[in-house]
Every structure is written in structure tokens, then in C-alpha cells.
């Protein structure tokens, strides 16, 4: 098979584009760093959405649009996984499925924020419910997206030595496993409204935020060399 050089290189850099677009919404427009506290009263939450009505709506749109940036990245992750396991096996199929659910999660996070911001003057409890839904699904949605790192870790640490196809250095595999470990306590955001495990706490927000932003921002510098190895292999074939 001959790979499309342009699309593969686009995939290598699209993680960067995703974090920039999503960050434009989350950080620059919505100022969700730190997030709205889960312990905030319905009135306080509703007031935030009323006061920043337009900024939050546009932020939500930026988050929803960022879903598209995941498309080339997701396709590239599948291609690289397939290359490592020498064909479309279980790893590649699982990677495809979790990339798809991650895209759904990203879009519906933005949608929930938009519903919360869409109409001013709506009942505070309804605004708070959609605010809850947005933060809970994005921060707690690990079952939908965390497998990306778990599968990458497995592909690099277990499959690469078996098949002899070395696309990534082993440290990338260990960092991927570390991301999985760092995100494990994230499911606790579904249980606590205050403290370190709430969605604005040290364990519930700051550790995963640093891991996610760091990993995605650095991803082109790992993915681009992997793409170069695949393309060099194409040239040899």
C-alpha cells in the first residue's frame, strides 16, 4: 500500500491543531482554567453563562469544531497501529473505535456548553445541569478516550518487538502508559463536588490537564518521525 504523504503529515500535526482550537474555546474564550467549580450554586453558574453569553457560545463552537482536527490524527493513529501489527488486527480496530468515541465526546462537550449558554434567562437549575453534563463528560469520559494511550503503549511496548516494526521509541510507550495511570482517578469526578478529586481539583483536573496538553503539544515531534519511517518504507517497497 502507498500512503498519502500529505494526509499522513497532516495527521502528525493535527493533534497540535486540535489542542490549539479546543484551547481557544476552553482557555481563551471560556476561561475554564480552572473550570467552573462543581460546588458552585445554580445561581452562580447561571450568572456566569448570562454574563459571558456570547463568549461561552463561541467557545462551545470552537470546541465542537475542534472535533474535525481529530480526524486526520485518528486516521494516522490507525495507520501507524496497522503498520506496527502488520495489518488491520484487533489493536487497529480498537484504536479506530476509541478515536471515534473520542470525537463524539469532544463534540458533545461543546454542545452541552452551548445548550447551557444558548438562551439567557433560562432556569438556573437547567443551566447548571448542562454545565454539569459538559464538565462531567469531558473530564470523566476516560472510558471513551483513554484507550488511545493504552493501545499506543501496548503497540509500542509489546507489539513492536514482536513484529520488528519500530515506528516509535520505547519511551513514548512508557509515557503513554503513564498518561493512562495519571487519568485513572478521573472517574472520581462523577462522585465528588469538592476536594482534589472534583473536576476542578488537583487530581481531577490539573494532573490530567498537564498530561493531555503536554502530550498533544509534543505529539507532532513523535508522530512526524514515525510518518517519515513509514514513507521511507513505501519508497523502498
Amino acid at each position, binding site marked *: 500500500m502507498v500512503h498519502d504523504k500529505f494526509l499522513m503529515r497532516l495527521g502528525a500535526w493535527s493533534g497540535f491543531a486540535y489542542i490549539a482550537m479546543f484551547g481557544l474555546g476552553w482557555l481563551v474564550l471560556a476561561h475554564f482554567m480552572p473550570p467552573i467549580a462543581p460546588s458552585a450554586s445554580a445561581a452562580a453558574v447561571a450568572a456566569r453563562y448570562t454574563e459571558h453569553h456570547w463568549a461561552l457560545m463561541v467557545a462551545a463552537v470552537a470546541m465542537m469544531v475542534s472535533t474535525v482536527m481529530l480526524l486526520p490524527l485518528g486516521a494516522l493513529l490507525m495507520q501507524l497501529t496497522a503498520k506496527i501489527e502488520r495489518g488491520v488486527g484487533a489493536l487497529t480496530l480498537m484504536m479506530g473505535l476509541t478515536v471515534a468515541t473520542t470525537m463524539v465526546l469532544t463534540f458533545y462537550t461543546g454542545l452541552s456548553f452551548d445548550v447551557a449558554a444558548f438562551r439567557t434567562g433560562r432556569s438556573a437549575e437547567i443551566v447548571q445541569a448542562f454545565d454539569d453534563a459538559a464538565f462531567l463528560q469531558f473530564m470523566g469520559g476516560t472510558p471513551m478516550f483513554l484507550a488511545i494511550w493504552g493501545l499506543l503503549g501496548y503497540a509500542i511496548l509489546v507489539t513492536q518487538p514482536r513484529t520488528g516494526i519500530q515506528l516509535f521509541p520505547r519511551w513514548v510507550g512508557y*509515557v503513554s502508559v503513564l498518561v493512562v495511570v*495519571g487519568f485513572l482517578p478521573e472517574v472520581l469526578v462523577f462522585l465528588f463536588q469538592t476536594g482534589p478529586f472534583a473536576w476542578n481539583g488537583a487530581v481531577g483536573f490539573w494532573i490530567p490537564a498537564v498530561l493531555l496538553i503536554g502530550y498533544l503539544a509534543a505529539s507532532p515531534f513523535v508522530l512526524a518521525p514515525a510518518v517519515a519511517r513509514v514513507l521511507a518504507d513505501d519508497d523502498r517497497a
Partner: protein
Amino acid sequence: MSSLTTTEPDPVAERPARRVPAEPEFWILVLGDLALFTVFFFVWTTGERADPAHFADGRATLARGIGIANTLVLLAGSAAVVRAIAALRRDDERAARAAYGLAILGGAVFLVLKAVEYAGHLRHGVDALAGPFYIDYFVFTGVHALHVVLGMVLLGVARARVGRGPAGAARPMVLQEAAATYWHVIDIVWIVLFTLIYLG
């Protein structure tokens, strides 16, 4: 010749001087995991400083005997994995399997004791929502218990691989040393958790 001297080449001296257990990249995971638990330790000390009376009350309800027993069980497990690695270096695969088995058994005992401790709290109406002390207690020890499970899986894989590949100096040791190192990490983290949570 003294009985302590030997004509056999020293296997330690034969190895490169700056050799890292398992592989250097594996230590990203080890140090990263330790860094994550360091945040937990910081969260605990910050919480205790904010409300020392609540933490003292909470500490009084813990089963210190189970905590001590679990510490000893994990220390024994760490000693067992040291013996497993030493046995592999002298090509005694049977002893290595037995030592790994002991460490895995230790992990299982740890989890059973932890479950008994949790059940005791829940029976007395104490759960993770009974205040910051119990939130931190259940979550930190729960996340640690999850590490114990992962460590047991790693040790199980390492044990299953003992007979595979060449023996002697060419024996593949990366997985073996990684599993052993990870078990030590679990042990070290528990010792700090035990000191912070049970002893204060």
C-alpha cells in the same frame, strides 16, 4: 584462599558499570508514577493541616493492625521478588517461579486485608462521603490497591515468561526487572501512605 573468594567471575563486575534495571525508558513510568503519588501525599498533608482534629478523629477509626500487617506483607513480597531476580541470575528457574508465586500471594493477601478493612468501615456507616479524611483515605488507598492489582498482573506475566528464551547471560531480563522494580515502587508508595494515613 578465603572461603569468601571465588575463582568464578563476578557477575556484577561483568555487567556495564552504569546499567539501569529493566531499561532506562521504563524509569519514565516509575518516576512519573512516583510524581503522581507525590501529589497525593501533598494533598493529604495539606488536608490534614487545614483540619487536624477531623484527621485525628478519622485516624482513630482505622484498623492499624491491618495496616501494619499489610506493610509486612508487601515488604515480604519485595523480598520475594529480590529472590526471584537473584534466582534467575543463577539460572534457578524453579526458585524464581516459587518466589514470584509468593510475591503474588502476598499481593492477594494485601487485597483481601484491604477489603476486610473497607468492609469494616462501611459496616460502621463510614464511606468516602464522610469527610475529607475518608475521601482521601478511600481514594489514595484505592488507587494504590489498583496498582497492587497491576503489579500482580506484571509479576504473573514475568513468572509465565521465566522459562522462555535463552538462559545464562543472554537471559531476557527487561520484563523481569521491570516487574520487580514496579513491585518495589508499590511497596515504597505504601510505606509512605501507611506512615501518613495510619501513623500521622
